[in-house]
């Protein structure tokens, strides 16, 4: 079953906020084997010019699995079968580094859905801001829905 193209342009406002903690950043850095002190030591981060420890450039991927509310993935009317989904592309544009103490919210827009051979590609764009409205990061995520193009 093809994805519902009426969903192109649809926007999902995250219903909960996401608070960035030092311990979470450290665990993420541990998981990617990165010993950098700016991920662990507030003093080292300050020496590098940051108000607190900062997060690795891909850290905000954690947000996609933690922000409550209805996102495109869980929206039954879109028709996405998560078992057919693989991650196609990912891009982050950072307006400033994410840091411990940030309280963030996300808005997700379905920018595009199109065929690519037997598959469909869905492009989702997340705008991640502080609760004060400062834009911190834009994250673009292309997922591949395998074998769902029309006529398959």
């Amino acid at each position: 079953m093809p994805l519902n193209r009426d969903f192109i342009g649809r926007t999902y406002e995250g219903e909960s906020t996401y608070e960035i903690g030092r311990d979470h950043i450290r665990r993420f850095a541990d998981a990617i084997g990165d010993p950098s002190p700016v991920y662990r030591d507030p003093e080292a981060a300050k020496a590098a010019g940051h108000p607190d420890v900062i997060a690795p450039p891909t850290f905000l991927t954690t947000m996609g699995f933690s922000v409550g509310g209805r996102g495109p993935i869980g929206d039954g009317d879109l028709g996405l079968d998560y078992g057919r989904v693989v991650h196609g592309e990912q891009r982050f544009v950072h307006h400033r580094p994410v840091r411990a103490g940030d309280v963030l919210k996300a808005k997700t827009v379905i920018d595009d859905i199109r065929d690519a051979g037997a598959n469909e590609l869905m492009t989702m764009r997340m705008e991640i801001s502080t609760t004060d409205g400062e834009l911190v990061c834009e994250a673009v995520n292309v997922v591949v829905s395998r074998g769902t193009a029309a006529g398959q």
Partner: protein
Amino acid sequence: MGASVNYDDVEVGTELPAQSFQITRAKLVMYAGASGDFNPIHWNERTAKAVGLPNVIAHGMCTMAHAGRVVTDWAGDPGAVVEYGVRFSAPVPVADDDTGTTLTVSGRVEEKLDNRQVAVVLEAKALDATVLSKARAVVQLA
């Protein structure tokens, strides 16, 4: 403050120090916990094979995060990475042994941009396959 690499010292073609990373099952479990991505294809061989994968595979984002270390280690300050994007071109299977799969990542400066920024392209390989394509970062240099 900021990157330790000076824009004026960098040319198109400047190579970043290449690195190798061992992606083991233990690393995948750590990454699952830290990222919140508990999809069983990243830790359960039975599930992975049932959906046609050769073995448990690394999270694409885990591969992307490791590859990004070539950029952040070179720049000196990870906060200098203003843009980072990849396409996932092949999965990274990880066998159930102590050595796991070797991910080899190299990078070079592709373009000097305005505002003392450079574009870096990365090449990431595992088991002779190119696992990331169009891997590109924009870095704010000193």
